[in-house]
């Protein structure tokens, strides 16, 4: 909205004005990150108090002795804060007529509703199980299929059908496969896998949010490159007009993530809940699909991949079929805790690894 206003002011000004700055994606990206960060900082404290007033918190009711180490009573559903900041910041600084941005807003709304229902059911029934896993999977797959339909439909898609159906891999210049309409199924699988992997990782204070904004930063850089004709040509990427706006959205995720971390760092004042983790995963998956870098998530989001793999192997293969454990505990971060590492140490080490993975994934820009 603000972008449209400033752009209009730039157009009506007779001489080169200050407003031309707002035409640059880089400048708007910085503004989006800063805006999202400050929104979190300003809205965060009253929002936390509001959640406490509504008793939307990880709490067991009653009297008696409490554990002095516990975190019960910490408000949850902090995902609202993240998506409020991303939403407002993107509304300000993104070009709302851009099809990529519209698709991303659709993803935000879809996953916010899904995450909210999940968290709300947990809150209402005061239990750890919210929405049943199969309903969650159905909703994620449905979004994936819808995204596939939009992406492969020449009328709705921001890209040509001939390009949309191609599958690309990091470190390779040429597409690895032409999936045709089957690409919609691939999208559904990608969205489901990425969304759930972020959800599984969200187990310790700050563990999911930092790797998420590292991944968002990587995808933001890729989006900027493929949306810039000169850079796309230089790095031998297919040029995707308008995809630079995704970089602004990614910046908003980065800023909102940092703002949320302000409150979510150990010991957390607020948890993101499924609303945050499913939503962040869903949006990262949508971005990966839109800039055709789905496989890059295996590197950039390596933390999420390993966490999800460890959990799935332990829960669905080793314990029920083999009758033994693969790891001490699953997901992987609980194994490290079991081995005697403090929560803070595990989290910071995971951040370091995710930063290194983000750097490695950026090398896929040049090594092709």
């Amino acid at each position, binding site marked *: 909205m603000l972008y449209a206003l400033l752009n209009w002011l730039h157009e009506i000004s007779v001489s080169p004005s200050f407003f031309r700055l707002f035409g640059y994606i880089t400048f708007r990206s910085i503004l989006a990150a800063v805006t999202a960060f400050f929104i979190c900082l300003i809205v965060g404290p009253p929002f936390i108090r509001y959640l406490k007033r509504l008793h939307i*918190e990880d*709490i*067991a*009711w*009653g*009297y*008696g*002795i*409490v*554990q*002095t*180490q*516990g975190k*019960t*009573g910490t408000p949850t559903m902090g995902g609202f804060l993240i998506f409020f900041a991303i939403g407002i910041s993107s509304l300000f600084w993104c070009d709302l007529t851009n099809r990529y941005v519209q698709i991303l807003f659709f993803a935000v709304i879809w996953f916010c509703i899904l995450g909210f229902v999940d968290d709300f059911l947990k809150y209402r029934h005061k239990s750890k199980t919210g929405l049943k896993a199969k309903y969650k999977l159905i909703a994620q797959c449905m979004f994936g299929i819808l995204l596939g339909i939009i992406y492969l439909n020449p009328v709705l898609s921001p890209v040509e059908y001939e390009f949309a159906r191609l599958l690309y891999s990091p470190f390779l210049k040429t597409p690895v496969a032409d999936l045709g309409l089957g690409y919609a199924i691939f999208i559904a699988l990608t969205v489901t896998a990425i969304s759930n992997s972020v959800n599984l990782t969200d187990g310790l204070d700050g563990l999911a949010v930092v790797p998420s904004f590292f991944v968002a930063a990587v995808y933001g850089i890729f989006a900027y490159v493929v949306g810039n004709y000169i850079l796309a040509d230089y790095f031998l990427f297919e040029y995707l007009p308008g995809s630079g706006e995704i970089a602004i959205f990614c910046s908003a995720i980065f800023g909102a993530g940092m703002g949320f971390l302000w409150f979510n760092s150990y*010991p957390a004042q607020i948890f993101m809940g499924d609303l945050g983790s499913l939503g962040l995963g869903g949006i990262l998956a949508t971005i990966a699909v839109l800039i055709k870098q789905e496989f890059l998530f295996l590197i950039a989001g390596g933390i999420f991949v390993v966490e999800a793999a460890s959990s799935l192997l332990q829960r669905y293969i080793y314990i029920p079929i*083999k*009758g*033994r*454990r693969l790891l*001490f505990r699953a997901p992987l971060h609980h194994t490290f*805790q079991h*081995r*005697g*590492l*403090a929560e803070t*140490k595990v989290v910071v080490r995971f951040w370091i690894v995710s930063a290194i993975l983000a750097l490695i994934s950026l090398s896929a820009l040049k090594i092709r």
Partner: protein
Amino acid sequence: MSRLVKSFLNVNHSRHDGIHRAETILENVRAGRVVDDLESWVESALDHPSWAIRNIAVKVVRLASLKIHAHRLCKMLLDMKQVGFIRRNAACALAEIGVGCPETLQSLEKALDDPYWEVRTASARSLASLVSPDRRLEEILISRIFKDPGHLNLKLPIIFPGRIYRERNFEVRMAMTWALGTCAETPRSLQAIRLLIQDDNWKVRNTALEAVCIIRLQRVKLKSEIDAILTNIDLSSTDFEPVFQIRQTWNCLNHSMGSSGNSRAGGD
């Protein structure tokens, strides 16, 4: 083809029925309720083709203290065809029902070589609860923990502690260290603990200190050796338990009011 599908469905259905029944029996035994024909159910369940039911049967044997099955559990413990959970639970159960069974100690000692770490851990813990100071077991444990008993005389600090261990799993080392503390008969246990106190993992170091406490209580004669060990200890740790002051204050208030406060608290 349809017959094949039907038979598969029948088998699956009866299997689920069987597991459900087994879980109900386990719940009843755990709650201390009387279960009809428990003995005969356990007898058949220990031979059931489904490992999940056999596993529940082993748990029931432990909870109901069915000592008559100690011999059977010893066999299951050493049977590599049984899944890891069954072997682990058998090792745990033997600590309670294996008292007096001559095979128990022998089986648990052999299980210290099991390829699955949870079985080794459970066996070491069970041995610790069953034995009193025992020179033979002391040597067995030392040989299971260290690659070479000659390492016991190494000069401290050890630069690469991982190289001296035969047992790579920290949890098993913890359980074996504890067992070493309970069965310590000679100063060799203290020599081993001297090295374990240098372990990379603070949990092992912590268990080694606990083992020293046990030895100090049981073997007053080894006081000078213990004092020598305690002069060079790494007390650093990669973990801590936070104490949230406000929760402590709440607990004090709650205690002073005899748990009759009228405010709301987040109980864990």
